[in-house]
């Protein structure tokens, strides 16, 4: 009966959705239960399997394809690039790049709820900041966060600051805030800091660095793996 209860929690545990106490109880359980640990390993392996189970069929010489699709696509791309270069000019190219950057760096701001801070004095400003965030008043968030003491340097406040700076298009400030979370390897916000730092880097046109972050996140055991993978696909499709 006990094992049945824990077996139901495996998927939530892998997705990081279990509350702390339940997570700890589950971890204690799989240390002694082979059956649950085997299930955990199988399901984690499924998360890392790309499910590309069918063999890839490559067209041969006799396949009847007059022009293989890859050649058509390549020829089309070269021609389009030449036309774009000739037609657009320097400013046209710059405008296009900005459009691409805007498209690949789009994101939905995360939901942030009110929780307590360490010092009661800072709680007031933090609550005001979160309420401003919930009303999409990001300048208000940053004004309220500026009143919080330097000692209250918790990852959740840095995260709120980072996201708000992203929303007001202060990418450098956002990167700085996320870097501070990443440096201390805070368990609660580490993955999110990596992901949104990637978004900030995209905004600055630092696509290669952003890509490295998303690749790293995709290789980790993280609830944000899917979003990181989607971003990598978006970057690839917009090259």
């Amino acid at each position, binding site marked *: 009966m006990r094992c049945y209860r824990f077996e139901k929690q495996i*998927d939530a*545990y892998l*997705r990081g959705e279990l509350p702390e106490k339940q997570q*700890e109880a589950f*971890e*204690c359980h*799989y*240390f*002694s239960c082979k059956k649950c*640990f*085997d*299930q*955990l*390993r*199988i*399901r*984690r*392996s*499924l*998360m*890392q*399997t*790309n*499910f590309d*189970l069918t063999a890839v069929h490559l067209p041969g010489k006799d396949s009847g394809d007059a022009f293989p699709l890859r050649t058509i696509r390549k020829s089309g791309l070269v021609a389009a690039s030449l036309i774009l270069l000739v037609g657009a000019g320097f400013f046209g190219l710059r405008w296009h790049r900005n459009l691409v950057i805007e498209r690949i760096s789009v994101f939905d701001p995360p939901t942030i709820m009110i929780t307590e801070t360490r010092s009661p004095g800072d709680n007031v400003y933090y609550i005001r900041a979160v309420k401003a965030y919930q009303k999409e008043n990001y300048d208000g968030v940053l004004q309220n966060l500026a009143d919080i003491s330097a000692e209250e340097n918790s990852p959740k406040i840095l995260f709120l600051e980072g996201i708000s700076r992203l929303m007001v298009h202060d990418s450098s400030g956002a990167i700085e805030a996320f870097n501070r979370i*990443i440096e201390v*390897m805070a*368990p609660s916000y*580490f*993955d999110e800091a990596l992901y949104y730092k990637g978004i900030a880097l995209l905004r600055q046109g630092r696509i290669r660095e952003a890509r490295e972050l998303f690749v790293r996140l995709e290789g*980790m*055991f*993280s*609830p944000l*793996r*899917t979003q990181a993978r989607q971003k990598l696909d978006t970057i690839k499709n917009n090259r």
Partner: protein
Amino acid sequence: MSELLLKRLEADEPSAQKEIMQSFQNRLYFYFCMRIKGDAPKEDLVQEVLACFFDSIRQKKIHSDQVIAPYIFGIAKRVLYNFYYQSSKSNNMQQKLQQIHSGVQDFEEDRNQETQNLMEGLAPILRKLAPIDQKILQRFYFNQESIGEIAAALNRQRHYISVRKDRALKRIRNEMKKHQLL
């Protein structure tokens, strides 16, 4: 784990020590992967836990076979706490553990090999599943969609998707046991 394991550990039997390491290395590594983000040396932490455990055996701190697993879990929690809040470094854990248990092998190499075997064994088993089961598993685990989203996408009831997923997982587990991958 076999019976009277504690007695065999206290007698410093290499086979008992090897049994502990085989049982718990993967679990410990899994635990630290879930709890620690970034490029921390998780293998060192695993070795640290096992070194502390064998130390405790020597000091006769453990009195029953039943408490071995929870005891190791408790050490793991303490090591995790030290890692985060005291930032103590686990240096040369492999060496220290070898002093306690001379038969210890390279954990990282064994773990990589085991993971590779598991992944390679999984593909042919997945091919044997019905296409709808493959789709459900792919969407749930690889794409991280919820049961509701999968049900909507495949135009089925949630209960149907949930039952098919559980049956597919059971089948995978049975096949893996049959091929001695678990």
